[in-house]
């Protein structure tokens, strides 16, 4: 896909770029491709963090990403790595097949909350139980983004969605599930944490966590899982910045970021 030439808004005291250091640029592992995400959707941030980590670990050329069915369905196009598209919820099974058949590869799945916590509950559960040496990025935006904002198992109590038009009624539809805390109990899990995207600081923490989750894999410690609270401005019907606040004010109290399991080997290096 052709990208227009970069336009720089030149400030009065013209900076000479060649004199300057590049502090930040697109990671090599993130493809130049323009994404189909809605404006302000933090899927994009999470993609970028994954790309940065892959670059920093120098594993781009041996990484295989597994995309979910969900808004991130095209993730395999957005990374400069080999990639596959899994069936809805089955990314952990597919990643298991890949990793077992090609143990020298670095394998990660990228899954939404509908994908991982609803239809795909059993596949992630057993990948964790077996301690598959893979990395799982779990994007929790509390709805089914792609299909138009239906209720997910992670939807907040009382939250109105297109399939809970009267607000999620905990009595009828259950309370939000804390899948990461639960999976952390599996002995095969080396690393299980929750992070968020609602502020610069949180994003930085998220990146560190993603790095550790990949490192767990590189060290052969078991499955590394990072749940990331993410926005869905479109289906939440909020603007992107309000959406970040929604995470902070509404999601964080129910899904507090935290470390639920950190393998000793990973603690050492921190």
């Amino acid at each position, binding site marked *: 896909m052709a990208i227009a030439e970069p336009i720089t808004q030149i400030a009065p005291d013209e900076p000479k770029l060649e004199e300057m250091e590049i502090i930040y640029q697109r990671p090599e592992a993130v493809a130049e491709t323009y994404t189909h995400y809605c404006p302000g959707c933090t899927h994009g941030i999470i993609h970028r963090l994954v790309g940065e980590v892959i670059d920093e670990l120098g594993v781009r050329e041996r990484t295989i990403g597994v995309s979910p069915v969900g808004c991130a369905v095209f993730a395999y196009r957005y990374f400069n790595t*080999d990639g596959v598209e899994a*069936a809805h919820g*089955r990314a952990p099974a597919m990643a298991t097949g*890949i990793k077992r058949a090609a143990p020298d590869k670095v394998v990660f799945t990228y899954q939404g909350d509908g994908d991982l916590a609803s239809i795909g509950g059993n596949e992630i559960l057993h990948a964790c139980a077996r301690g598959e040496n893979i990395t799982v990025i779990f994007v929790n935006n509390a709805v089914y983004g792609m299909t138009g904002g239906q209720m997910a198992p992670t939807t907040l109590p009382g939250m109105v969605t297109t399939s809970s038009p009267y607000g999620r009624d905990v009595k009828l539809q259950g309370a939000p599930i804390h899948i990461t805390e639960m999976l952390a109990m599996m002995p095969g899990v080396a690393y299980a944490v929750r992070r968020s995207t609602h502020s610069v600081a949180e994003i930085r923490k998220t990146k560190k966590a993603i790095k550790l989750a990949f490192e767990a894999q590189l060290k052969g410690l078991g499955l590394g899982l990072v749940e990331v609270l993410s926005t869905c401005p479109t289906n939440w019907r909020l603007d992107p910045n309000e959406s970040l606040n929604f995470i902070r004010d509404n999601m964080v109290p129910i899904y507090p970021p935290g470390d639920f399991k950190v393998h000793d080997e990973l603690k050492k290096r921190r």
Partner: protein
Amino acid sequence: MAKELWKGNEALAEAALRAGAEAYFGYPITPQTELLEHMSRRMPKLGLTFLQAESELASINMVYGAATVGARAMTSSSSPGISLMQEGLSYIAASEVPAVVVDIMRGGPGLGNIQPSQGDYFQMVKTAGHGDYHAIVLAPSTIQEAIDLIYDSFELAFKYRTIVTILADGSLGQMMEPVEMPEFKEWPEERPGWALTGAKGREPHTISSLYLGAENLEKLNLRLQKKLAEIKANEVRYETLMTDDAEFLIVAFGTVGRIAQSAVRQARENGVKVGLFRPITLWPFAEEELMAMTRRVRGVLVAEMNAGQMFEDVKAIAQGRIPVQFTGRMGGTIPLPDDILPALDTLIDSVRSRNGNKPEPTRAREVSA
């Protein structure tokens, strides 16, 4: 080579290993479990990947994953487990990666029972899941043939980047017969060009079955249809027995195909000119060959271990030129020559009466009864 006694399921497993299987993912289900168990014994010793999955849903998606990196991956199951794989199979087909799937059919529908059956003909031959595609479906009738077919399966699967299915029934899986086990095949070290091997010194490879936009998906489908046509042109297999002078034809596959051999021999002893047509590839089906044959005989009897699934295809091929009748048993009862021969008589009767001939005094069954 000396013959050895092998149980069907174990023979399939061992032959798959010798054919080059590198990764097996499966879930226990009677009557195929010995296949999985054989793999669990052998593969770790051979340094290969054996994994018991949490379900058939997981197995097929693990196979899918392993296939994307170019590994020779397979699974096995039985009817209800195969139903659970329908979505995965459709994904694999659309992604054009090779995979081998063994279905040791049991009685259905539902939980049914674990006795032999051929009730998955429709589900495996017509489609497996949503969308337009076919797997290559191989239907062995003896353990030796099962070995030989699975021995070819990975080559077929890789040649066409397609699913190859071995469709057999519980009795073939459970029985023992003397067979010759082939040697281990040599495969090149290198992964095929389309495989995911890491984007090192090349553009990233992606494997997906997602085609946004009707045009793109139509293109994929046209490519798939072209491939299917190619397979149809190259890979049809079938066997005949005493068809040269046959007036009547029995069509049967798999276990029923071998039983029909006995029926044909018995009928021949009684002077009935009957032959056997046994499709080995159920897809692609030997349409032309069977059609040619239906032009020469006076009637066709289809025998199956179901309510008449392949029967529909045979009828379509015969195009109403001659009577095509059906005999079958369901629920795990294997149709024996005792079932087939009376049905053959009925066919012969109806042909003769249709042709205005009175049934002749000495009929097959009267002698053999």
